[in-house]
């Protein structure tokens, strides 16, 4: 009986050790992101590819004055923890950095810096220099 108790204790300790190692490695994963330059318009005939229905639904719930949204350019990239990616979208210089735990840091050069959690269902939207244009940043599978 005493022996069984000791065996269980050892097994529990090894389990926690394994769990800690797995958790530690989970925090070191990469994050795949998509940055879109989107332009807003009240003219449905505006040139460009309409944003996806999912993005459109999100944008239409925001306090913006446009009725239609079109993708001007898009970039997908993967970032490891503490890795950064420099982008130029809509005439603005951007730097996206993955700071870990599904949290990113978006720096708009000469304007400001945003730090935000970006889980699978979360989207970050911010305006750029060009009129009616903004950046949509989200995590992709």
């Amino acid at each position: 009986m005493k022996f069984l108790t000791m065996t269980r204790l050892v097994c529990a300790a090894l389990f926690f050790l394994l769990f800690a190692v797995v958790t530690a490695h989970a925090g070191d994963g990469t994050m795949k992101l998509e940055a879109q330059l989107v332009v807003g318009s009240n003219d449905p005939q505006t040139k460009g590819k309409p944003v996806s229905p999912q993005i459109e639904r999100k944008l239409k719930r925001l306090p913006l004055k446009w009725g239609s949204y079109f993708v001007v350019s898009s970039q997908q990239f993967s970032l490891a923890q503490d890795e950064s990616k420099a982008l130029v979208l809509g005439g603005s210089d951007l730097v996206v950095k993955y700071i870990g735990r599904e949290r990113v840091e978006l720096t708009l050069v000469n304007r400001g810096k945003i730090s935000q959690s970006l889980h699978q269902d979360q989207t970050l939207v911010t305006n750029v220099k060009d009129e009616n244009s903004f950046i949509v940043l989200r995590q992709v599978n």
Partner: protein
Amino acid sequence: MNEEQQLKLQAFLDGELPEREAREILAWTQRDGAAAALLAELKNTRQALVKSEPHLSVPESRDFFWSKIEREIQRLEPETARTPDASLFAGLRRWFFPAVALGALVIAGLIAYLNTPKTVVDGVADADTTTVETTLASADATTYRDAGEGTTLVWFSDDTTAIN
């Protein structure tokens, strides 16, 4: 016969008198019948007391008697208390396995602690917050959060006219 004379007779019978005084008492008892009668009575009483004393004896020696009690106590003690398990496996079971378990727990705790990002240590409540810093002192930023869709809008002040 006074009390002092009676005590002298008792002391004579017990052999406590000096030789000269003892001879005087002996001569006195030969002359005095009452003294002789009292001496005879004291002798009889003394002999009666000696004969009537109970004489109890143990059939064994004292050491053997207590040794027997000690052996009986040891026989009734639990077997495990008298015979310690000194095998190698028992030693492992008692010390090695708990030490391994404790060591593994300490290592696991250290690994988990050292690999926890600072953002997590700072608190779960801060995990989903948005922080905005503006580069220019005169600039401002407005944050709007749509919790239902999980959308965060950060609008910098130079374009606020674009917001409804």
